[in-house]
């Protein structure tokens, strides 16, 4: 049986997934990214600092990471050292944005795959929002409209949580999460100016002066958010993980994980470690020029495998070739030292755990593992990915509060660059919400960009087959999955969403 899910909703951007099911098992899978703009090569001829503002506009969900990577690439090219406040404030902006993204992903995007929303009808408490919501649902059901509200068009049968009390808690938190996300967004705005697309992130630091009132506001919001993350988000994920325990065995992809550094400490070390692990053997450090992107199955006229900055233009295929070729996606197929890799929060947790460098993380992971009776290897799964996001969130919020308390009040965390540079190259590596992100910049004469390259997390995860026909990370997660009920293949949706695909980024 062949099955197509198009569009995959509740993700970011346009994704199509084709699978072939034989004897209740997925035998082949194809992920197609359906949107193309061609941003990176269009940067040619623009001023080098525009890269920060323009690349972040590839994505409305993780713009902070693109801005940071572009800023890091420029700082690398120009050999600029950030001052203390610049480091702290940058962490505070990007960290808050990461948290917003994790919350958005679990509640708004993924939780509707687990919650049975009809449980709201059994609610008999006195919470205003819940009562209003119940009234609304009742009205929707009784009106017999042709177009029910999109929240209630759940498709699958008998796959959601059956315990109505549990459902009610999740629905309540689903609603509360909108408020929590607004808090995180405000934290971003305090020093980032707006969210999404923060203008204040620049090469050299953050342009906002950390005044006392801004800092106090930030810390207050961060404390509220910590409450939500520790007591609601993390607990919910843990409970969902216990309820759907079989999902620690579903959605296993390749055992190769790649991470980059992120959230710098003042002593120059990082909160999460950069490196590559294969079959749970970890090697610290990355070589960005070992990345090769293959185009055989991507809708571009250039068909080979290319190192970063090797191509200075990419040409989209015309309509005829689009319809009549083997190519099936706009996304290219990046490989690290020839390996298919998975990136993202599970990779962060696995690599950092294996490195043993962050004792706090290892302690949390060990505790959860003994509670759920799982091992670090089970993080390579649907639930493992959800759980990793929650673990990472808890650690980030603690760091943000610590950093905010360390900021020297009133001191600008910004060093302005002087003359536009000529003929320099730089690399910026960071972890975005969805995983490892690399920017490569080549600045030509007089500060104008000669070439630009972005290798984005979702490109790793939803990559098509490479030129040796080896399927990408999400495709490998899908292949081999056992489908319990072919009429209700919710496993597929859950696997796709567990990787939090962001297609606007992936193709850029």
């Amino acid at each position, binding site marked *: 049986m062949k099955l197509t899910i198009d569009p995959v909703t509740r993700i970011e951007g346009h994704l199509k997934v084709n699978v072939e099911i034989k004897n209740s098992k997925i035998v082949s899978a194809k992920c197609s990214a359906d949107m193309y703009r061609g*941003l990176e090569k269009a940067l040619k001829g623009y001023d080098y600092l525009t890269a920060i503002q323009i690349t972040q506009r590839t994505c409305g969900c993780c713009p902070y990471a693109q801005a940071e990577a572009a800023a890091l690439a420029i700082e690398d090219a120009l050999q600029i050292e950030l001052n203390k406040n610049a480091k702290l404030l940058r962490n505070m902006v990007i960290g808050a944005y990461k948290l917003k993204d994790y919350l958005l992903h679990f509640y708004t995007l993924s939780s509707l795959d687990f919650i049975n929303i009809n449980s709201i009808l059994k609610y008999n408490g006195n919470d205003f929002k819940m009562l209003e919501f119940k009234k609304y649902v009742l009205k929707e059901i009784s009106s017999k409209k042709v177009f029910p509200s999109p929240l209630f068009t759940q498709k699958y049968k008998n796959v959601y949580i059956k315990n109505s009390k549990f459902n009610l808690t999740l629905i309540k938190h689903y609603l509360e999460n*909108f408020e929590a996300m607004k808090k995180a967004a405000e934290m971003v705005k305090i020093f980032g*100016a707006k969210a999404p697309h923060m203008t204040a992130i620049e090469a050299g630091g953050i342009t*906002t002066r950390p005044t006392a009132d801004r800092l106090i506001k930030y810390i207050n919001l961060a404390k509220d958010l910590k409450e939500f993350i520790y007591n609601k988000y993390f607990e919910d994920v843990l409970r969902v993980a216990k309820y759907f325990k079989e999902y620690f065995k579903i959605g296993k992809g390749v055992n190769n994980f790649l991470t980059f550094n992120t959230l710098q400490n003042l002593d120059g070390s990082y909160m999460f470690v950069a490196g590559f692990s294969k079959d749970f053997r970890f090697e610290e450090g990355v070589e960005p020029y070992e990345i090769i992107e293959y185009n055989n199955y991507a809708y571009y006229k250039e068909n080979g495998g290319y190192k970063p900055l090797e191509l200075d233009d990419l040409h989209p295929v015309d309509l005829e070739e*689009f319809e009549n070729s083997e190519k099936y996606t706009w996304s290219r197929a990046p490989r690290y030292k020839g390996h298919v890799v998975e990136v993202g929060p599970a990779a962060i947790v696995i690599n950092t755990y294996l490195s043993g460098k962050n004792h706090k993380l290892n302690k949390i992971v060990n505790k959860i593992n003994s509670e759920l009776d799982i091992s670090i290897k089970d993080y390579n799964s649907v639930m493992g990915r959800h759980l990793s996001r929650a673990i990472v969130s808890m650690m980030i919020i603690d760091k943000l509060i610590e950093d905010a308390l360390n900021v020297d009040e009133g001191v600008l965390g910004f060093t302005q660059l002087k003359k536009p540079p000529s003929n320099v190259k730089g690399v910026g590596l960071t972890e975005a919400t969805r995983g490892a992100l690399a920017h490569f910049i080549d600045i030509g004469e007089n500060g104008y960009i000669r070439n630009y390259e972005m290798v984005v997390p979702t490109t790793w995860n939803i990559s098509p087959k490479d030129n040796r026909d080896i399927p990408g990370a999400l495709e490998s997660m899908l292949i081999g999955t056992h489908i319990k009920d072919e009429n209700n293949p919710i496993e597929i949706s859950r696997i796709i969403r567990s990787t939090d695909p962001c297609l*606007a980024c992936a193709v850029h």
Partner: protein
Amino acid sequence: MDRREFLKTTQALLATIFGSSFFSIEELDAMETSENKPDLIWIHAMSCDGCSTSFLNAEISLVDILSRFVNIVFHPTVMAAEGKLSMEILKKYEDTQNDLIIVVEGAIPSKELPHACMMGEEFIRDTIVNTARKASLAIAAGTCASFLGICDMKGMHIDAVSLKKCLEEESVDTTVVNLPACPLKPNHLLYTLFYYIKNRKTPPIDLMHRPLRFFGNTVHERCVYYNDFQEKIFAKKIGDRGCLFKLGCQGPVTKCDCIKSGNDYDKYNCIKSGHPCVGCASENFPRNILFKHYDDERKLEKYKDFKRI
């Protein structure tokens, strides 16, 4: 919080957006029980989802808007349906007579390269045109849908078009309201929606189809540093006192209400954060230089030719 209190806060919020008490509490109350709510279909074209994310931050929460004032039928980021089922919603819509508002986020592919954006194995361009034909109001959310923004840069191969241009090309005469700013400001959309709900017509717009209420003045005219500009006090670097003009500020050529709107949502903005305006709401966004050193003598160039907006 109870019901009365909720309506009161909503009314207060709308008053800050409209600048007057546009709705009485009774009207808000009646609106909720009305059977005559317009439907809303939200489509992502070549977008980054930033406008949707931004709209989730609206002061009136999405769930409230959804359950009270408009009937959101299709929104890829929040809807539970997926795949075929979600496309069926759009298909079914072709046969109804309901009052429809379409919101488009992102630029639209050209006729020559329609495969640059697809949804449900159809060209997004066709989906948008077919839906807009039924709609009584089309809203271009954000700079890309209005003026192409980053989807129209010098080296690009896509030749994308704006929503207005796309509908013109396909001879659809639905009125378009452009709400530029990158990302969309939630208040701009709420204003347009509520104005339409009350009056069943578009709010007053300028020649570029932007609501006059927000796009009548440039950022510069309302800027906190306007006096410094008059006195010719210019900042030489970030953190200095003075007008940011010499650092590449696009405020004088960008029409938007970033500085003026004083309500909660907009208490932060780029200029207050020390960064010159990058002109994200402007029809010329992005220019080749957005932020520069004060004695940098390179020329700021415009690339756009306005043939596709």
